[in-house]
Structures are given as structure tokens and as C-alpha cells.
């Protein structure tokens, strides 16, 4: 199986997901409106309250816009189990499993469209923030946010793959994902600084890579101060990806094999 064949198969999965997405004509409009109204809400919240640690209303607004952009990216990584569940119910997972491309590559490929799309929505959200609400970006470091965003995706993809492995075994798509996203948005400092959290939660915030990722992206996009050095944040992301990506792929493979042995791979 040549690299060219594999690349074309990956692109075919992305193209399939794009066509399916576009077949629901109101979905894009709905997502763009959600971004607009979320920004409007937080724009007025930033005017209403004074959050300690922020010098102005605008600095809190900039803080939260980056958080809103990132939550979409986080959701995209965690969408894999639900997509898997849909494939199981439709019987299309069997076809992927019985193809030369294989189940694991297909599952990874299935995560690409949501990731690219979430990245696009994040760019749209930031653009809205600039055009409609007067958000000021730190343009000299904005280009660096792109590779950092890719590293964030790689750091969070394993979580989606681990839940996909669970979906193969228990046949439920959203088992556990919603509370994990909610927890990460709290300890990751999505809507407020983690310094407001109790001590033990701050420890958790420092251990997982989402806080480092949001801090770093905020620093690059809106020039906010960093809780730790950029190198530390980057090493955290690299470390998480390096450990969790192979581990999650291994466990996904094992769960598929286990389900094939038990015969439950055909259940949904």
C-alpha cells in the first residue's frame, strides 16, 4: 500500500465528510451564528464585570475570544467517538474495517475534517472579534499560532482516539466525553484565569496540556502574559503527544481486535 494510495484514501475520507456536511444546508449558517452570538454575549459580559487580573474590559474579551476559539478545536478532537458510533449504526464501519485502508487509518482520517473545520471556525471567530468587536491581535506573533494549534490538535487527538476505543467496546459515542470537555474547559482556563481556582484544581490545571496550550495561544494571539515559559508549554504539548498518541493508537487497535474476537464488532 503506497504512501500515495494512503494519502488519497485520507483525502477521500475528508472529502466524504465535507460532502456529508454540506448536504445539511443550514448547518454552516447555524455554526457561524453560534460563534457570533457567543462573542456578543461575552463582549457584553466583559463590559459588565470587572475580572481581577485584567487591566481592561478589552483584555478580558481578548482572553475569552481565544478560549471560545479553542473549545471548538477541543470538541473536534472529542467528536471521533460520536462519528464512530454513527458509522457503527449505519453499518459503514464494517466496510472501513474490511477495506485495505483499515479501521485505524479510517478512524484517524475521520478526525481530519472536524479538525480542519474547527480550525476554520476558530479563524472565523477571531475575525468576527476583530471586525465586529474591535479585538486587537498581536499580528507579529499570530503566524506562530498555526504550528502551535497543530500541536494542540496532536496533543488532544489521543483523547478522542481513547474514547473511540471505548466506543468500540461499549457502543456509546458520547460516553464520558461531555464531562471531560466541561472539566478541561474549567481547568484549562477557557473563560477565566486558572488562578481563580482552588489550589488542588490549579495543580490539575498545570498537569494537563490544555492550560499550557491556551496560555501559549493567548500569548501569541493577543499578547497576554504567560504563566510559564513558552518552552515549557511546548514541551508539555510534545510530551503529551509523544506518549499518548502511540498509546491511544495501540489501545484502539487492541479494542478493535478484542471486539473482533468476541464478535461484538458487528453490534451497535
Amino acid at each position, binding site marked *: 500500500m503506497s504512501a500515495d494510495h494512503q494519502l488519497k484514501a485520507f483525502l477521500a475520507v475528508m472529502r466524504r465528510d465535507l*460532502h456529508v456536511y454540506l448536504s445539511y444546508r443550514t448547518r454552516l449558517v447555524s455554526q457561524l451564528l453560534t460563534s457570533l452570538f457567543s462573542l456578543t454575549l461575552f463582549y457584553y459580559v466583559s463590559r459588565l464585570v470587572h475580572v481581577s487580573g485584567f487591566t481592561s474590559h478589552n483584555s478580558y474579551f481578548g482572553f475569552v475570544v481565544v478560549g471560545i476559539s479553542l473549545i471548538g478545536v477541543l470538541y473536534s478532537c472529542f467528536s471521533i467517538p460520536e462519528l464512530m458510533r454513527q458509522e457503527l449504526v449505519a453499518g459503514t464501519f464494517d*466496510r472501513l474495517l474490511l477495506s485495505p485502508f483499515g479501521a485505524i487509518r479510517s478512524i484517524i482520517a475521520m478526525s481530519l475534517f472536524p479538525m480542519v473545520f474547527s480550525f476554520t471556525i476558530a479563524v472565523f471567530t477571531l475575525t468576527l472579534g476583530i471586525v465586529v468587536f474591535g479585538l486587537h491581535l498581536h499580528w507579529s506573533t499570530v503566524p506562530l499560532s498555526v504550528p502551535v494549534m497543530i500541536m494542540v490538535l496532536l496533543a488532544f487527538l489521543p483523547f478522542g482516539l481513547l474514547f473511540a476505543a471505548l466506543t468500540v467496546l461499549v457502543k456509546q459515542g458520547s460516553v464520558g466525553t461531555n464531562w471531560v470537555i466541561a472539566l478541561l474547559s474549567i481547568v484549562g482556563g477557557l473563560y477565566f484565569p486558572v488562578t481563580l481556582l482552588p489550589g488542588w484544581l490549579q495543580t490539575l490545571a498545570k498537569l494537563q496540556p490544555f492550560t499550557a496550550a491556551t496560555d501559549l495561544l493567548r500569548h501569541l494571539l493577543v499578547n497576554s502574559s504567560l504563566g510559564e515559559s513558552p518552552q515549557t508549554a511546548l514541551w508539555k504539548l510534545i510530551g503529551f503527544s509523544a506518549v499518548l498518541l502511540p498509546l491511544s493508537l495501540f489501545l484502539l487497535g487492541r479494542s478493535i481486535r478484542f471486539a473482533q474476537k468476541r464478535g461484538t464488532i458487528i453490534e451497535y
Partner: protein
Amino acid sequence: MNLSPLSTSAGDPSGPAQSQQPLHAVASAAPLVLRSITKRWRKDLPLILDELDLTLEEGTSTWIGGRNGIGKTTMLRIAAGLIEADQGRAEVWGITPTENRARYQRLVSFLPAGDRGLYARLTVRRQLEFWGRIAMVPRGEFAETIDRTLDDFDLRELEHRRVDRMSMGQRQRVRVAMTFLPKPEVVLLDEPLTSLDTEGGEILQRAVAELLARDGCVLWCSPSGEHLDMTFDHSWMLEQGKLVPV
């Protein structure tokens, strides 16, 4: 063309190294061999497949019947590499799905029973193109393969229609087309005539004839053979986990 339920007459399975040789260089292997396949769904249930042996040889068609729930679909799923047997092994030209999964899946194509396995929101052409990519159809043959499939399975008029806007029979024709699209050597059909009209049945028979003409083989399972208008080289009934000649 000789086919009979065998014990182990196909000889030793070839290892992964042999799987890289030209297929016909693996002299001791056959297109599809099921060796002593045993499967039990639960400990408190009887064996659904009991040391079942089957060999399909080049250019042959085989029909297996049996009442509902007797194990035909389970046998096909094991042969396709979808699920694993408790004991025994499925081999295609001496390769097992665990030894070389990608190569195994290139050689075998499985049409499951029912109407699942299609993306409801994709058009027929996009469905075929997607499957062609996933099935690793060679680059130079890709466009020709899609066009040929649309023509051979009489899907030209439906090529831009979404699957969820098609009748059950039309969907089944798409499923059949996808099964034959990558030019497999072994085709496993589980109740393939479901929802097909006379014309659809004839299209399927032509596809099977083309497969046999290029020395492929087909394993066709359905509860009874009375409604079939085609003849098979070999016919068996599955009873109590074993194959019985008809």
C-alpha cells in the same frame, strides 16, 4: 473444478513471506479455505460452527443454504475477516487476516445482508469514488473503474442521486456494485437478492459470471435456493454447525 468440505487437504498455509509472491505461486493454497472453524456465541449456547471446513477453488461458485440463525452469516463474517473464529482459520491464498490484513482485504469482498453500509447523504458516484479510494483501486485505473461500475450495474441514471432518496432495490444495486468494484478474487454474498428486481438479479448474475470467468470464486449464502435462477458448482446446507451436501 473440485470442491468438497475438506479436513486439511489444502496443505500448510503460507506465511507472510509467501504473501508477497504472485498469488498463483502459492501452490498449496486455494482462493478461500476455511479450516476447522469453530464459533460459539455464549458458553451456554451450542456451537454455531463446529469445526467447519470449506475450500473454494478458482472459477467456482458455491451456494450454502440453511434456516435463519443457523450460522451462515457468522461463517461469512469469519471468512471476510470481520470477526474471528474461536478456533480454526480463514485463509485466502494461504494468507489469514491477522497475518496480512491489507492484502487479505484486497482479495476478498463481502456483501453483508440487509441494507446497511451506505452513506445516506452521498450520491451514488461519490459513494463509489469513496469506496474505490478506501479499497485502494490503482491510480491509473480509478476513473475507468468508477465509470465501468456505473455502467455494469446500470447506475448511470442514478449516479447523482443521494442514497437516501433511492428505493431499497436501487440501494441494493449500489451495495452489489461496491462489492464488485475493486475486482476482488473472492466474493462473499449474504442474501444478495434482497430487494433486487429481475433486472437487478440479472446484473448480479452477470457480475458473478465475470468474476468466475477471470478465475475468481463466489460464496453465496441464502436461506433457500428455490428462488435462484443460477446454477452453482457446489451446493451445501449448513446444519448444526457443519456443511452437509445438498
